[in-house]
């Protein structure tokens, strides 16, 4: 329940749409610099309470906004995101500006290059307002693992916004940005989107270049957009997606006009509902809201049928072995030598490594590095890491079999709505188990969208997860639009 002193939703505000804002800038009704200034005013008012932004990039933002205003004044055609204020999760590097990964390890780090996804947003005219708080190195499901304090859910500041992209979700929910970029490794876009009541996109692995993403688990990490509505989220994906020579794993699959595809009615699409996502552990109020959403899909002309994903329950253990193993390798680079935090108290090189990492990393990061190292160590590699990769194939194949029968699969995004700050922080395993509905898609590499799907009786947002097969984002957006339309 909301606290006694703050009525619910005090901080919630819906941003304008991309089309509306861009249109107003193009016609001269508003100036991009005034729009940016207005957002900075709102950030100044709300950030002390919500802790959404870690740093602001005012110079960069206003320089971009001035460029856009000059184009508008000349009557030039404006790029698709002209003047749109966006926030960027702090695991994505922004040249010369803080990129801390919400860790002490990178507190003073100023990257010498830009993340490709950020550069593409800016090339499309977006105004980067600043860097968004998140769980440290993207490890967490509540944004309570940040070295710079938790983010608070704008719907109820005593509750978590979800994680790890809590700042990104909260920024859009509180209109502290029109849109945001986040990252999703095990659910870190979808789950905070569901907790905050906004749209979050999980692109297919390889759809968006990972160049400039501070890596957590390379075979799982994806960059994706947050927005206040499905069409805008689709448009944003279209801007950042596509092959990048700087990321050898980025796909050459053609980038569709996702926004236009999302306009197509969902009637006739086959929707799968897996019983495994509606069993024990699902909060009945969340279940009820999702069932309503499924009824809307039927009313929209979708053919809804059950599908079977029997290995779902093995996804969390498989995920936490693979993700932590890859993390232990990716975070080995933080050694105090070339960048990042260096402990002042080291007399030998060995001490330098250990002290810098001990002092630079938080508890959850250390826990995952240790678990991952254990899973990969001699004598355990076959039993843990290799076994998990075999289970991963079984999970992926199970999805592919289902997608031979249906076009999209819908589930709750999270078994519970936003919980209170501190409620799960003492029990890492409980936190991991709450990822059950999202890690499956992460392991399989498929795509999905979280779309707001009602609220609990207490007013907490519920999100529906719409999953589609590899590079099937257009289908996921079409279904999500139908769910969204029914909410108006």
């Amino acid at each position, binding site marked *: 329940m909301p606290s006694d002193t703050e009525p619910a939703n005090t901080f919630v505000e819906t941003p304008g749409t991309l089309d509306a804002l861009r249109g107003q800038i193009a016609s001269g009704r508003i100036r991009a610099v005034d729009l940016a200034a207005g957002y900075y005013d709102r950030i100044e008012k709300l950030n002390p309470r919500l802790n959404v932004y870690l740093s602001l990039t005012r110079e960069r933002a206003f320089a971009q906004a001035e460029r856009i205003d000059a184009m508008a004044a000349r009557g030039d055609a404006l790029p698709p995101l002209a003047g749109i204020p966006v926030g960027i999760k702090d695991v994505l590097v922004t040249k010369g500006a803080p990129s801390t990964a919400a860790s002490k390890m990178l507190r003073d*780090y*100023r990257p*010498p290059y830009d993340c490709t996804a950020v550069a593409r947003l800016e090339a499309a005219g977006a105004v980067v307002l600043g860097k968004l708080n998140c769980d440290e190195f993207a490890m967490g499901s509540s944004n309570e693992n940040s070295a710079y304090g938790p983010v608070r859910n704008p719907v109820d500041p005593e509750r978590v916004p979800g994680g790890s992209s809590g700042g990104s979700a909260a920024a859009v929910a509180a209109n502290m940005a029109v849109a945001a970029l986040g990252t999703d490794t095990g659910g870190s876009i979808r789950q905070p989107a569901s907790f905050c009541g906004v749209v979050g996109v999980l692109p297919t*692995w*390889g759809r968006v270049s990972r160049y400039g993403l501070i890596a957590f688990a390379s*075979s799982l990490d994806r960059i994706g957009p947050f927005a206040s509505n499905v069409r805008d989220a689709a448009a944003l994906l279209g801007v950042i997606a596509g*092959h990048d020579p700087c990321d*050898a*794993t*980025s*796909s*050459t699959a053609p980038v569709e006009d996702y926004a236009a595809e999302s306009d197509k009615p969902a009637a006739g699409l086959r929707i799968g509902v897996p019983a495994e996502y509606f069993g024990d552990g699902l909060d009945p109020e969340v279940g009820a809201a999702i069932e309503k959403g499924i009824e809307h899909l039927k009313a929209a002309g979708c053919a809804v049928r059950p599908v079977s994903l029997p*290995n779902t329950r*093995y996804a*969390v253990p498989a995920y*936490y*072995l693979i993700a932590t193993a890859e993390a*232990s390798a990716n975070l*080995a680079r933080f*050694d105090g*030598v*070339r*960048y*990042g935090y*260096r402990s002042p108290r080291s*007399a*030998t*090189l*060995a001490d*330098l*490594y*250990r002290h810098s*990492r*001990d002092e630079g990393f938080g*508890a959850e990061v*250390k*826990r995952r590095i*240790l*678990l991952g*190292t*254990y899973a990969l*160590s001699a004598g355990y590699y076959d039993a*843990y890491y*290799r*076994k*998990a*990769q*075999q*289970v*991963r*194939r*079984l999970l*992926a194949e199970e999805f*592919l079999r289902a997608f031979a029968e249906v076009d999209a699969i819908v589930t709750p995004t999270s078994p519970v709505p936003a919980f209170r700050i501190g409620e799960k922080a003492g029990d*890492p*395993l409980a936190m991991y*188990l709450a990822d059950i509905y999202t890690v499956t898609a992460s392991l*399989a*590499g498929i795509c999905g969208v979280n779309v707001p799907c009602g609220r609990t009786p207490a007013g907490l947002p519920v999100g529906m997860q719409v999953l589609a097969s590899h*590079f099937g984002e257009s289908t996921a957006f079409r279904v999500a639009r139908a769910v969204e339309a029914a909410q108006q």
Partner: protein
Amino acid sequence: MSARVTIEDVERVAELANVELTPEEMPGMLRDLNAILDCVAELNELDTEGVAPLAQVSELSGVAAALRPDRAGSPLDRAAVMSQAPETDGVFFKVPKVIER
């Protein structure tokens, strides 16, 4: 595979990972690791005989990534990179002595 991880196991792994744990941090980490490993023990219920590990999901989607041509280009600006070094002589990263004479 029901593991009972001991303090010695955790210390060994911490050494491998170059992560230092204080005595205060050790019991909590031990408890958490054991709880998590008990959870992952469930994977043994699945018969994975003959199943090939899946390390790269792009294998499934049939759409390849493209390698860029193997041509030398300009790396990151050296000055910008070295500006982030905790300690440098301008050319090298400086670290404490590795070998004691």
